[in-house]
């Protein structure tokens, strides 16, 4: 227990006595360990503990938030007083019925076990990955590997009597390979991550991870500038799902919907995508990077069908979103840490598998672009305009993959592009990523099978 029930009760009762309709305490203690291995050396090893408490009060539909590193009762009461002082009136003062704070029972989402190992064993794994990556080609001039392991312990109390706790283990490796030929350099990367501990590294195929990063760097090193223009594009599975995440996922978060700043805010029940498209946001996938047993408002997570055969079925909704839009909560209230109020955020978000194959898509596209690996991107939820970088791409001529290209970007509007995904493959894969938005940077998974977009604007230099 990170905060005594009695203290929590006293703080919440004080908030209610000052007229708050709702009070929530989010207590966090997170241990973090990070190792950077680069130039064949351990460059830094860092560890630390993030600890603090966030207090949220709701008056009507106004959300007030304060946070502090202190867990002293006097400091918590002072935070509540500071928040409420602007909005509390004598007329609004209430009293709180005694709360039992019975611990919330929920189905725990599994996490990969954490084998207790010395730092040396972790370092050995990084050295092995470095050696395998460099061994792929003498042109690999540098390998930089960041190892991250953390355990987030959270506890939530609220004025509705909720008391919930969860321990969330995370582990991830980010490895970047640099290939150099004369003065020309190019990079390739791989960044697998899971909900879990060191057993993930033990089961990770380091050979495959090394090959992915090295091959990408070598391909881009020899790539030619990408031609610019509108063309059909086939996007590979896994991290290619970043397109759906940016172009549509953010538009379905009630954080955007509640201010009508999403182009999809009033489209529930409507055909917003090609019938080949079904999409899901799932917090319950076993061992996945974006999975949670409970969200940061204490609600057990669930599998949420966002789009079914092109029709918008559900939004991604938190408590405030529910209050302001009436859409059902989906266990999607998330935040980076106690420093952020929760907001509706994605978890493991993916386009579900279809029936097509890569060969089907190639044969139907004629000339275009094949994106084997996507980079990051961003979206303006208000207009739906998005952009993504292509990390590894190839020109396609008459349905055949040709030379590699570099410097390509895909841009468009989410609402348009969803109708242009005409073929969806049967090889669904998920990939770990970090998503930044109003409640901070959180672990999310993106995913999709290989899919074909009939036409999209490709930015390039030829």
């Amino acid at each position, binding site marked *: 227990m990170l905060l005594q029930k009695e203290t929590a009760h006293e703080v919440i009762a004080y908030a209610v006595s000052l007229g708050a309709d709702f009070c929530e305490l989010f207590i966090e203690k997170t241990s973090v360990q990070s190792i950077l291995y680069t130039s064949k050396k351990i460059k830094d090893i860092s560890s630390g503990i993030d600890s603090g408490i966030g207090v949220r009060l709701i008056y009507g539909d106004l959300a007030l938030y304060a946070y502090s590193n202190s867990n002293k009762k006097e400091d918590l009461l002072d935070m509540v007083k500071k928040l409420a002082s602007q909005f509390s009136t004598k007329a609004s003062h209430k009293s709180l019925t005694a709360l039992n704070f019975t611990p919330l029972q929920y189905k725990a989402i599994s996490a990969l076990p954490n084998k207790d190992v010395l730092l040396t064993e972790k370092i050995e794994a990084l050295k092995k990955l470095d050696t395998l990556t460099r061994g792929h080609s003498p042109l690999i001039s540098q390998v930089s590997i960041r190892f991250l392991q953390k355990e987030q312990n959270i506890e939530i109390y609220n004025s509705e009597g909720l008391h919930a706790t969860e321990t969330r283990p995370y582990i991830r490796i980010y490895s970047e390979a640099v290939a150099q030929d004369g003065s020309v350099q190019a990079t390739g990367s791989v960044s697998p991550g899971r909900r879990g501990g060191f057993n993930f590294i033990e089961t990770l195929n380091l050979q495959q991870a090394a090959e992915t990063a090295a091959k990408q760097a070598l391909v881009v090193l020899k790539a030619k500038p990408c031609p610019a223009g509108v063309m059909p594009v086939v996007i590979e599975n896994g991290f290619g799902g970043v397109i759906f995440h940016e172009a549509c996922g953010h538009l379905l978060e009630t954080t955007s919907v509640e201010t009508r700043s999403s182009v999809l805010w009033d489209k529930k029940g409507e055909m917003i995508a090609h019938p080949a498209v079904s999409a899901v946001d799932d917090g319950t996938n076993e061992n996945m990077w974006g999975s949670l047993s409970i969200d940061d408002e204490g609600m057990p997570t669930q599998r949420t069908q966002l789009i079914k055969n092109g029709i918008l079925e559900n939004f991604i909704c938190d408590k405030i979103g529910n209050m302001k839009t009436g859409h059902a909560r989906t266990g999607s209230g998330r935040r980076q840490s106690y420093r952020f109020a929760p907001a509706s955020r994605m978890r493991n978000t993916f386009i579900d598998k279809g029936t097509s194959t890569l060969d089907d898509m190639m044969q139907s596209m004629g000339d275009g672009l094949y994106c084997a690996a996507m980079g990051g991107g961003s979206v303006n939820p208000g207009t739906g305009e998005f952009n993504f970088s292509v990390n590894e791409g190839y020109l396609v001529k008459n349905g055949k993959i040709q030379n590699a290209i570099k410097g390509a970007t895909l841009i468009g509007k989410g609402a348009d592009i969803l109708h242009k995904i005409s073929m969806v493959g049967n090889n669904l894969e998920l990939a770990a990523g970090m998503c930044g938005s109003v409640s901070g940077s959180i672990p999310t998974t993106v995913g999709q099978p290989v899919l074909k977009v009939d036409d999209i*604007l490709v930015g390039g230099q030829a």
Partner: protein
Amino acid sequence: MKNLIQKTIDRAMNSGADACDIIVNSSDSLNLSAQDAKLEKFKVAKTSVLGIRVVKNKKIGISYSESFDDDALTFAVKSSLENADYSDVNEFEDIKIKNSSDFVKENIEKDSSSMEEKIEFAMKLESEIRKRDSRITAVPYNGLSVAESHSYYMNSLGTYTEESESYLSGYTSALLKEGDITSMHYSSMQERSLAMMNLNQCIEETLEHAVSWLKAAPVATGKYDVVFDTNVLSEILGAFSSCFSAKEAIEKTNPWENKLQHQVADMNFTMIDSPLYVDAFFKQHVDSEGVLKKDLTLIENGVLKSFYHNTATAAYYGTTTTGHAARGAKSALGVSGSNWLIKAGISSKDEVTDGSYLEIIDVMGIGPGSDSVSGEFSFGASGYLCKNGKRIQPVKGITVAGNFNKLLNSIKCMGKDLEHNHSRGMFAPLIKFSELYVAGK
């Protein structure tokens, strides 16, 4: 705070560290946002974090704690020493700055406005912008932030520095809809007091572009001369700032690793890192190793003159630190820049804006769309097609692509007046770059 830091350094030294330094970052902040003529969010925060770096047997270990109680700090010291044990020997990184006196600089201007006035300002920002155009369907981002930050540095050689800063930021946006066409823009401002905030200017700048872009269309795919808004130019230079990093050069990820004293840009291009530039909003007096900062010429007449150095990179190159050490309480030692000044050219505004060109006001995806190692970039952009200084067509739905190394060598002309970005950390003349690749219709 000074006593707490000294006590923690003593604890590290008594536990076996050969040298130790500590950074403490603390902040107080207030964030307000307004929606639909009501206050929507109200957030107050007070946090601190203490970061320890130790040197033990020529090995570096770091750790941090957000709790300052005795147990937490004892654990942080122990962790940093354990981390050092597992690190490789680092021949170049050490803790070696020994100043003769403490350095304390406070840039706190207590804003006299009341909470009610701040709330009223946030609400007025939203209500005023809504009044200006009936096509506004939402004001997705609108609010006011007040921040006060303190940074403390001390090392086991007795060097002590302290810097404090306070400021306010205001921001608004407008999402407009006309038929099926939507358009949005966002603007921000920052000042030392609420009274100095120019609400009207922020609203007008937001609407100027949001309204224009309702009529925007992509231009035809091809090569165009381009003038970047100073905010955009600042973002592009930021995406490729590793070109100035000695740390990246050592790690072979700086494409200019072997370019010192070589031509990397047009011969009229001179760029200075100016931590105390008179018109800059944020002044930086000391770096994260306690070194007093001063101007550094990065590029002079197109020639790369220096990298950013801390004491570790300087030791590697056999030179002296430039005072650009960067380290947060939770991070390892690196380097970073401060304010950027690009020296003015000789052309009048009419000369710079002569002929046809694209004026780029807003960009999307500069980060993921830029490869700092290869220099390639490609990102989404919005702006105007211009002729002889006149905006003749609003433009959206295009990408601008190129290579950073070529970009700096394709300067057609530079204006003689300096402009600055919103955060007043970048000062540059209007620069026309020739023939960038643009994808449109």
